[in-house]
Every structure is written in structure tokens, then in C-alpha cells.
């Protein structure tokens, strides 16, 4: 599996320059607006998009059919891709955190570590997104699964906007119990969300492995 991760990293290296430029642009925007949250929330997701590129490169090269003739199991291939996804989410988180600390050190040294949770939330969203998307990519391939990504992005956004508007207009009210429940979850978010992410990862990985074992080339 190390070989597979190594192969993805080598393939993705050529994007490093583009991402360095993007990081500088976002950093300048962060400094000028004296706000690190924009950088934190966007950059983790931008880095994580590389997971899709890793799948694309393999698909273009028809790598999987070749890799499966090597001492690599089908499970290894799925495990390799989930590892790369997590590594990229982690990389994004590290870059965001360093930037946040950097901007805080210049603008408000007394709150050096404030805003770090934005990066964590970004990484969490990225992982949840891929937990939903990866089984589809495993089944359909990255090209055919594109419409699924659109749905994964748009449905939650659409729902939030729809509910938000309806609540504002007064057409809809959120039940008191639901609000209390939601608040309780938010208060314990640092325990609940990592557990949810872990659960999502286990379910997603199990589905992907099941699909890939049956895949024909």
C-alpha cells in the first residue's frame, strides 16, 4: 500500500506550484482583510480536491488493471485511496493552522491559537464529503461520478438556504426540542463530530471495499 500512496504523492507533486500560488493569494486576502477564517475554511477544501485528481490520474493511465497484477490486493487499492484522502485533509489542516497562527502572531498575538477550529471544521466537512463520494467513485469512476459530487455539495446547501428562508418568513418554525438537541450536540461537538466522522469513514470504506472486490476490468 505504501507504493500506492507514494505513487499518488508523486503524481500530485506537479500541482504543488499551483497550490503554493493559491496559498499566497489566499494569505494576502487574509492579511488585507485581517481575517484568517476565509483562508482556513477554503484552503483545506482546495487541498482535498487533489483526492479527485489522484483518482483521475489513475483512471487516465488505466492504472488499477495494472496494479492488480502486482502484489497488491483489491482492498489495498481502496485503502490506499482513503489514506491519500485523509493525508490531504490533514495536510490542508496543517497549512491552515500554520497560516492562522501566522496571521494571529502578526495581528493579535494575545490570541495566537484562536480560529484554529475553522480548519478542523473544514477538514471534517472534507472527510464527510469524501465518505459519501468515494463509494460512488469506486463504483462509477471519477468521470461518471461527477454529477454525484454536485448533488453532495448542492443538496445540503439548498436545504439550509430553503429552511433558513422558510424560518425567516415564518412559514416554518424549528421545534424547541430540536433546537435544544442541536445546541447540546454543538456543545459536545468536539467529541460527537470526530466520532461521527470515524463512523462515516468505517461505513464508507466498508462499502467501497465491497464494491471494488466485485469490480471487473
Amino acid at each position, binding site marked *: 500500500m*505504501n*507504493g*500506492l500512496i*507514494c*505513487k499518488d504523492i*508523486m*503524481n500530485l507533486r*506537479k500541482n504543488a506550484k499551483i497550490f503554493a500560488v493559491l496559498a499566497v493569494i489566499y494569505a494576502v486576502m487574509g492579511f488585507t482583510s485581517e481575517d484568517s477564517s476565509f483562508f482556513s475554511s477554503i484552503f483545506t477544501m482546495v487541498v482535498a480536491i487533489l483526492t479527485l485528481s489522484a483518482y483521475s*490520474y*489513475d483512471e*487516465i*493511465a*488505466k*492504472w488499477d*488493471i*495494472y496494479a*492488480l*497484477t*502486482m*502484489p*497488491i*490486493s483489491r482492498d489495498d487499492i481502496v485503502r490506499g485511496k482513503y489514506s491519500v484522502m485523509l493525508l490531504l485533509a490533514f495536510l490542508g489542516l496543517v497549512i491552515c493552522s500554520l497560516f492562522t497562527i501566522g496571521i494571529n502572531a502578526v495581528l493579535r498575538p494575545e490570541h495566537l491559537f484562536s480560529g484554529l477550529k475553522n480548519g478542523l471544521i473544514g477538514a471534517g466537512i472534507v472527510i464527510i464529503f469524501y465518505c459519501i463520494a468515494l463509494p460512488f467513485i469506486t463504483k462509477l469512476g471519477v468521470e461518471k461520478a461527477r454529477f454525484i459530487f454536485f448533488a453532495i455539495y448542492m443538496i445540503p446547501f439548498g436545504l439550509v438556504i430553503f429552511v433558513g428562508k422558510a424560518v425567516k418568513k415564518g412559514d416554518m418554525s424549528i421545534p424547541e426540542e430540536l433546537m435544544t438537541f442541536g445546541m447540546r450536540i454543538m456543545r459536545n461537538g468536539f467529541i460527537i463530530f470526530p466520532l461521527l466522522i470515524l463512523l462515516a469513514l468505517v461505513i464508507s470504506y466498508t462499502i467501497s471495499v465491497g464494491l471494488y472486490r*466485485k469490480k*471487473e*476490468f
Partner: protein
Amino acid sequence: MANTDALEIKGLIKRYKDFTLDKISFTVPSGTIMGFIGENGAGKTTTIKAILDLIKADDGHVSILGYPSDKLPMDVKASIGVVFDGSNLHENLNVNNVGYIMKSIYKNWDTELFSQYVKRFELPQRKIIKEYSRGMKMKLSIAIALSHHSKILILDEATSGLDPIVRDEILDIFLEYIQEEDHTIFLSSHIISDIEKVADYVTFIHKGRIVFSESKDELIYQYGILHCRKEDVSGVDKNYIVGVRENSFGADVMIKRKEEFLKRYRQFPIDRTSIEEIMLFISKGKEML
């Protein structure tokens, strides 16, 4: 591995909507080169995919180096070298990147041997694979297949689309590889001259079925061409006839069991034939019967 079969396929069936691999059975003895021939779409690649467990067969059994192909231990899998029609390598990598990746994948990877092949094949180390010619890409794939001390090479159209000089060079490498008595090559190709040059055995697949799987010398010995008048064809026992080609001067008839035929029909002279001719007569000649 001496005196055993490196590859054994028994009753392999794979059904698609418009094509069926129909009870494929043949064996490749260890230490030999088996040429796997057939026209495009005959089922060569499907058979290879089934051998490598890349598709699930509906029925039948495949074993490689004595192990069922769907339950190969990793160390056995590591001793199989595979080359497909394309390079299957990422185009933005260079030779050094590929070597590094393969070293991480194969426990038995031989970096020194890989470097030797890279030098011998004159593969540019700084260029990325995208800038390689087709011949270079195939040589790189072959270098990879040879650099982890493979016991068996499985090659799917590895020489197609290459110019005759590169093809000849690659065939020489195969002949060199087979010098080790436990090395085996299974080589699919529709370029029959390549098979005639290197193969010990030939398996011919036609429309998803195996027509024959025999030693090359035996094939040449058993088959022959009868040149006769068109009206003479009807006088020949059909059990000897593989195919007939008619032309303005008469008829060419591909005969099997040549020795037996000559004893029975002493009046007909029989010419030597080639694997290419046998394949053409079987593929195209039968309908004329």
C-alpha cells in the same frame, strides 16, 4: 517447477451480451513460450483478464504456478510479470519515479537489474513517460516485468504497433529470458510472425473457442496445403479438410493429419504450411466448405 504447468486453464467460461468465452482449456508447460493467437475480438484479452482475475469467470478454473488465480499468495503474485497493450503508467512520471514506486510495491524488486534494463533499452531517465514513443513505453513495461525476477511473463499484445526492429529486439529479450528453465512466457499476439519466431507452443482462439493448443513443430508437421482442381475437393474426406480457398486456377485445401492423408491419397502432393496460413484457413476458409 520443472515438468509442471506454469499456467493451467480448465473449462473457463465468461459470458457477455455479445460474446462468450466458451469452455477455454489449455496448459502452458513451465520453461516454454506459449503463443496465444487469434484475430482481433477472438477473446485473447478476455482470457488474459480471466487468468489474472481481473474479471470473474462464470465457470472454470485457472491456476498460475500451481495456485488458483483468485487466491494467489502475494509472493507468487510478485513472481508474475505482466505487460499490457498500453503502458498503464502515469504519463507525468519518469523512469526514476517508476523505479521508486515499484520498489515500494515489490519486495523482490531488483533496482540494479532495473537500471541495467533502462540502460540497455536506452530509456531516457529525465524525460517523462508522456514524451516516450510507443516502443519506449513497451520497453519500460517489459523492464518492469523483468526486474522483479518473474517466473512467468504474461504479455497481451506487447509487440503490436511496434516497428519490426523494436519488435525483433523485444523478441530477443524474451528468448534470453526463457533460457532459465523455470521461466515461462504466455504471449498473446495477432502478429503471427512473432509467435512463429519464438513460441514453442501455439494456442489458437477463434470466436471465443480454442481451436487448437499444440506444439508449434507438431502443428507444422500435422498440417499441409493441398493444391488441386476445384472438382478434386469433393473427392477428399471432409474429416481431413480444415479449410478451402478457391481461386481461378483451382483450390488450396488446408489438410490436417497430413501423414495419414498422404497414405490414403498418394496422388496428391502436400506443401508445407505456416501457422499464419493455418489460422487464416480456419478463420476464413471453413465457410467455403
